[in-house]
């Protein structure tokens, strides 16, 4: 899945951007989203729960959510003048019944 719609900001989960030098640090940037599953998906997932296996609706839901969180992180990086976010991490937490928070965070840097 593609994490961002445009690639002006380089993302990497390593401590450097391979093949590039870090010239400036801008600190931590974060992005989050809280999502609830919708009833239609729940019913389908409920049926799928009988035979087991992949719950495609949920796979897509989490994909969309993670993309949203990443986009927000990237927007923040862009606003501070960075051109890359390194050491990106993802986290998921259950906030309430049926709702999950997904967030992405990393270090905004300028690479050359």
């Amino acid at each position, binding site marked *: *899945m593609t*994490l961002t719609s445009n*690639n002006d900001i*380089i*993302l*990497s*989960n*390593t*401590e450097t*951007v*391979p*093949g*590039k030098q870090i010239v400036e640090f801008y600190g931590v940037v974060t992005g989050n989203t809280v999502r*609830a*599953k919708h009833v239609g998906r*729940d019913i389908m*997932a409920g049926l*799928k*729960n*009988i*035979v*087991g*296996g*992949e*719950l*495609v609706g*949920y*796979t897509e839901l*989490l*994909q969309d959510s*993670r993309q949203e969180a990443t986009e927000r992180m990237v927007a923040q990086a862009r606003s501070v003048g960075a051109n890359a976010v390194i050491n*990106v991490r*993802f986290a*998921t937490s*259950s906030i*309430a*019944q*049926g*709702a*999950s928070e997904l967030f992405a965070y990393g270090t905004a840097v300028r690479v050359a």
Partner: protein
Amino acid sequence: MSTSWQLALNYGVPLALLIIAYVIGSLLERRHFASIRKREAGVRNFPVLTTAELPPDWQAHDARLLVGNVVVSLDYFKRIIAGLRSIFGGRIKTYEPLLDRARREAVLRLVEQAKAGGFDALINVRLETSRLANSAGGEGTAGIEMLAFGTALRTNTSRFNAR
């Protein structure tokens, strides 16, 4: 007459569900494992590293974060077995293949993306597992998510160009 109908309804429906779940669930699992093995064979020579450090002869450029995920659940039959097992404790064998195939599926999705995008290697691959809460408010889970992510690279190493 009505009591026998009630009896059939009370015990027959869950029993039928158990049988359906067992038969279809096992079939789907076998098929999924077959698909995983086949696809894994196809990407076997694609370098996937869990380390962030590059081998010294790699000249990397164009790094990109890629993500692969999958949400899975146990079938009804195996959930019941797992529930029984947790009374006595010990190894819950029904969960092991589920988590195994989900994790391998997530990694495959990650690697297949890197390959499709024309990348030459994946480094610093990380795996994460998380539980989706059940919206019905029950104890059980709605699903388990497996997440695989890593940094895809293009390299100009002859080792890859030769392939």
